[in-house]
């Protein structure tokens, strides 16, 4: 069997990469995808703990996370289409209305 630590370390690596992509990327769609990557990393940790403790609550939580991610994707992509329509650009630097 694979030790639980391995899964957790993989989850941390994926989360870190997602966080890096979130900060580094300049395209709104890619930034959105890096959020999905971070959610996936958290899901991996949930399932790993679920298996380690022999209880299925973790897997139920993963289902809720997936539902929230799907809802978020629908609304977020709607917002992205709106941004493109109003600003003719997907560059995050051009969407700085709230910046001081």
């Amino acid at each position, binding site marked *: 069997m*694979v030790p639980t630590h391995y899964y957790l370390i993989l*989850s941390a690596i994926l989360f870190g990469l997602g966080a890096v992509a979130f900060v580094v990327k300049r*395209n709104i769609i890619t930034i959105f*995808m*890096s959020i999905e990557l971070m959610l996936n990393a958290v899901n991996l940790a949930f*399932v790993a703990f679920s298996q380690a403790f022999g209880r299925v609550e973790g897997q139920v939580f*993963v289902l809720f996370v997936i*539902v929230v991610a799907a809802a978020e994707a*629908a609304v977020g992509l709607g917002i992205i289409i709106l941004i493109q329509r109003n600003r003719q650009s997907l560059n995050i630097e051009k969407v700085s209305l709230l910046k001081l």
Partner: protein
Amino acid sequence: MSPVLLIFFVLAGLAVLGALSLVLQKHPIHSALSLIVVMVSLAGLYLLMGAEFVAMVQIIVYGGAIMVLFIFVIMLLNAGEEEHTDLSKLAKFAGLPLALALTASLAALVVKPDAGAPAASQAFIPNATNQISSMLFKEFVYPFELTSFLILIAIIGALVLAQREKK
């Protein structure tokens, strides 16, 4: 090395490579395709852990629905290569160490040896899908029903956002 461990390392390597390529690719469609690689290899890892229901939901909902939505939007908006902007001085020097520190501290937090979790993975949970379904409709029935509201609100929100303004 046992075959299970070998499969784990292959899938984990694929996932990390896919995530790296998500960061490094310039074109959003390439990033989206590498994210699909990550999701499918994560589904394989779920299968390896005996969470077959979660693995199938991962492929159908994430790999299927959500990523198709992403690619659809990328193609609809005809997104090109992203423009390169100058990194700030601070980001250039502190970025990589800080990212490594974040990953290391996260790993150290979850891998605490005396956290009560058994060191090695236990045997498969028998009848996991069965248990999940009964748990969804007993202990977690209120959150479960609330998610249907959430989906409804998301549908309405997406419709309102994406429709053209009527004069």
